[in-house]
């Protein structure tokens, strides 16, 4: 697939307040760069992420969605990220069924100390989405503003 030079993917990153959002802040504090098309939405816990939000993002034209939460066993609410993991597994199999590329959605565990991991993950994820090209299958053209 030819890589579209003009293509600027829209990437939504859902970050749990206690670990990954703090990890994202840390990568900022350490001036670690990652692409500007990654936009972070703060949620209290990875278990707050309703799979519906991911579908909504794809519907509205996001090209990739990533969920970041505390490492298993480290959840601020003790069990939240385990629920998130199970729900995402289910969602991923549904997205597979719909024929959405597996790489467009991802779950990563990033602790509040892993600023470097956060930046590296976002760089890598952004590159992956860039290669995949725009999300056409789930995008709802009626939602397009331009």
């Amino acid at each position, binding site marked *: 697939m030819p890589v579209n030079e003009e293509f600027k993917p829209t990437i939504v990153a859902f970050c749990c307040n206690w670990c990954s959002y703090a990890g994202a802040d840390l990568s900022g504090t350490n001036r670690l760069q990652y692409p500007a098309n990654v936009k972070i939405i703060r*949620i209290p816990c990875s278990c*707050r992420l309703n799979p*519906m939000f991911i579908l909504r993002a794809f519907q509205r034209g996001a090209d990739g969605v990533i969920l970041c939460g505390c490492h298993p066993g480290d959840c601020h609410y003790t069990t939240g990220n385990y*629920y998130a993991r199970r729900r995402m597994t289910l969602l991923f199999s549904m997205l597979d069924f719909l024929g959405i590329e597996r790489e467009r959605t991802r779950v990563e565990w990033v602790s509040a100390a892993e600023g470097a991991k956060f930046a590296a993950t976002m760089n890598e994820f952004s590159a992956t989405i860039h290669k995949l090209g725009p999300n056409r299958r789930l995008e709802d053209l009626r939602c397009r503003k331009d």
Partner: protein
Amino acid sequence: MQRVGVFVCWCGSNIAATVDVEKVAEVLAKEPGVVFSTNYQYMCSQAGQEMIQESIRKYNLTGVVICSCSPRMHENTFRKTCEKAGLNPYMVEIANIREQCSWIHKDKDTATEKAIILGRAAIAKVHLNAPLTAGTSPVKKRALVIGGGIAGIQTALDIADAGFDVDIVEKEPTIGGKMTQIDKTFPTLDCAACILTPKMVDAAQNERIHIYSYSEVSSVRGFVGNFKVTIKKKARFVDETKCTGCGLCTEKCPQKKVPNLFNLGLDNRRAIYIPFAQAVPKVATIDADYCTMLKSGKCGVCSKVCTAGAIDYQQKDAFIEQEYGAIVVATGFNPIKLDKYDEFAYSQSPDVVTSLEFERLMNAAGPTGGTLLRPSDGQHPHTIVFVQCVGSRCDDSKGKPYCSKICCMYTAKHAMLCREKYPDTDVYVFYIDVRTPGKNFDEFYRRAVEEYGVHYVKGMVGKVVPENGKLKVQASDLIGNQQLHIDADMVVLAAAIEPDKSARPLATMLTASMDTNDFFTEAHPKLRPVESPTAGIFLSGACQGPKDIPETVAQASAAAAKVIGLLNKDHLICNPCTATPDEMMCNGCSSCEKVCPYGAITYIDKEFRGPNRTTLIRRVAQVNPAVCQGCGACTVACPSGAMDLKGFSNKQIMAEVDAICR
């Protein structure tokens, strides 16, 4: 639609160097609902805050968006600023354009574009914000301590010292715990009883401490500040108020063949007993499993000899309801059972003992009166082999994966005491590693080796075979690279320690979390080590992990300090970002209740208006806002979408998604 004010912060040059703050303010001013938009050098400064407050009043703002540093930095600052200007603090949203924008991008155009999008997302969210009020719940000024060992006693004494009432619930007939069974303590070789029993008496005499001995917690309801606990006072068949503890009954009881559990079954006691001389409360207890009167109705000797008339064969378990503001778990530990360790012949020879049994054999108040004698023939042992890490640091399912922490030190103590009392004994200690982290611990261990001549051998004992009254010990010496065969008179096994069996059901009752080894989990391993993640539950002593006495006491006092801090408050302020069910959509399926880590969700039957002026009764979920911590697990679990989270509602998050993807 809210009347939104947008405030873009320069953060000196931190933001302004890479983000065109003027452009951001200009573009965001055109967003729907934005009535005022500005930028300023330092929003968090006094002048910046005053500007925000002034604008709120001047433009009648109902929502505020601040484009600045991370909300983890200044969200609270800006919430307070707005609150002072009469705006609900939860009508403030922060767009993180420093840590997540200006600091990670170099290109000004890109960074400015991203800052605008982040600002838009915050504006979209703030339109859907609703004023939230943090609720309060009253605090019951009484604490419950579960477990009356040294941890529980210390916690109770400290809480009582601060002027609060404390109840101790202890499942044994006396408080004191494991420390009562110990002879001497490392590394000072203090007599354990001499330092513990005064504390036990202090606890008993303290007006603010009530001891429920021979009792268990049977149910816990409620939440932080308002626990309702049922305590089961087991029938001891003796009236505590009448018994004087004279001990006459314990001498006259004809049932003499009852294993004395205080001495770990090394000798026998009667069916009516006081565990040891300094027991608190000093009240006799009838062991219902052995008492002839209770079993067959024939005997009654104790009743006849009791001059106080305290014996009551009709006594029943009593249940006491009490309310508490805080609960401290101090359930302690036990050595593991060694029935899976046949290679050490523990079940085959009485001369193979655990360290705690050895402790009783060395104790002046123990079965041998403090003289070290072999349990099999009452002879003085000449060669003693100590085996470390029996069940600790095991990678198989037989033992425990963790280090039991105290064994290295008490084994050094035992070895040292043996050599001191009986210089003619040969003492071997087999170890994997000797771990002595602690004040004066390594010095103590070195004294055992250098001054007392204890033979420390690195290697594991493979087998112990009882033969002709001796114990043939086969072991490997890893440093000398040889096999050792020792004819020992006694073998002492440093059994791993595990949490008390009562801990698991208790954790379920308290909705407190545990690790895979059944130790209670702390809220944070570094920063909140004495609190459970469940609000109002505190941890003291070895229930949280293996600990020696000084550490236990330190943690006990730390837990007490946390409890005092809680009980000092008249009301608790709750997190207002809690889950809330839409009762019209809820069908009472219990999905949310199952995923709630805090037990915040209950169900009630509620009347609803039905068709044709009828009333319907439906089961609907209720969230206790004092208990809910706002994780949102239930909001996703709810199949009908009835559950939502205040402050992070479905609509708010989707509005952010829309703004970002636009």
